[in-house]
């Protein structure tokens, strides 16, 4: 693995800044891309950016902090769990818009 992990001068900063940009990029896409599935994707990019900041800033001169790594793994799992739920909701919504309030507010009761 040493092959790919050279001595970085401040590799941590490079990745952390990348993470920062990713986060902002994701937020931006979230705002302008209105389809729910694309928003879900955008949220995942934001998540990746946040994780990268966490990892990048935990990268010391000789080692990477295990604590942020653990936090990121936890974060990734939480993110995938929520993404799965979100995707399922999006599909279900397309199948059958289940919303009693719309039915009753708009027209007289069906």
């Amino acid at each position, binding site marked *: 693995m040493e092959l*790919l992990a050279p001595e970085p001068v401040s590799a941590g900063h490079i990745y952390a800044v990348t993470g*920062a940009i990713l986060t902002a990029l994701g937020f931006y896409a979230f*705002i302008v891309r209105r389809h729910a599935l694309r928003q879900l994707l955008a949220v995942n990019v934001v998540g990746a950016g946040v994780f990268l900041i966490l990892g990048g800033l935990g990268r010391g001169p000789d080692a990477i902090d295990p604590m942020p790594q*653990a936090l990121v793994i936890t974060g990734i799992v*939480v993110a995938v769990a929520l993404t799965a*739920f979100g*995707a*399922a909701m999006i599909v*279900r919504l397309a199948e059958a818009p289940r919303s009693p309030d719309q039915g009753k507010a708009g027209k007289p009761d069906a």
Partner: protein
Amino acid sequence: MSGAFDLILCLMILGTAGIALFVRDALAAIAFFIAFGNLMGLAWLSLGAVNVALAEIAIGAGVTGILLILARARLLALGDPVHSGDTPTWLWLGAFAACTSFAVLLAATVLSITPESGLDRVVAPLMPGLGIENRVTGVLLAFRAYDTLLESFVLLGALVAVWSLAPARAWPGRPAEPRMADGQMHQVAGASGRVLLPVALVMAAYLVWAGSDLPGGAFQAGTVLAGGLMLAAMGGAIGLPRSDRPLLRAALVLGPLVFLAIGLGGIAAGGFLIYPKGLAKALIVTIEYTLFLSIGVTLALLVAGPPVADSPVPDAGGNG
């Protein structure tokens, strides 16, 4: 040179992310998102976080990617073309300005912090007491096992949440079969699924075992298992279970339950989630193995989605 490598990698990450976020076609977006996830994995490797790299590639890119692809396919089948509606120009501009300033501010903030592995010093001396080498596993399953315990329940809860979306008639039922419609394709996929499932199982078991000392762990392994299960299901090598099968329920809760039980057992040893002296490694490995099984099954079912009403399966030979 290494700096250049990092820089190029970061640019590629940003590039793929940009395409994934802004390209019109949804499928292309998802494809680039998966590429983005794999590059993120490389970034984690480059940072020296092999555990995270595994998790990112397996979960962040793999499972999330499949989730998005499946969701898109189902949306298309339902007549939703997955086009983003037009957003007004002022929104684009306003959001652009806001997000640019946010990016600058955040980058400045990030640069104001010196990267350091501050807690490594704290973790290192505690590791011998656990009897395992992988510090990340140490943090996940000992020092912050509480987080991980709760997280395993989040995963389980997500599946419950997905199930809660099942239509009235579909409960308790099976998720929609991700099976190939074409009979021959079915065979091809099934063949590979049959081959890959045991391989995946072995690999996953190895990942858990290695996770004590080398990179790996329950979550990464669980993903591999989930991948094997999904492939097998796509090929029809295994059927998707009804959501109320007792065995399935048992498999789902096994890991979290064992984790919880060991945590509560710790009360006898002095407090919640305390591992008795000398038993730490054994308990951690127990937790990891059970957790990996449950995570694998949970992830596979998360991807499969909520149960659907039993309708005639779109049959390959139906329109001969």
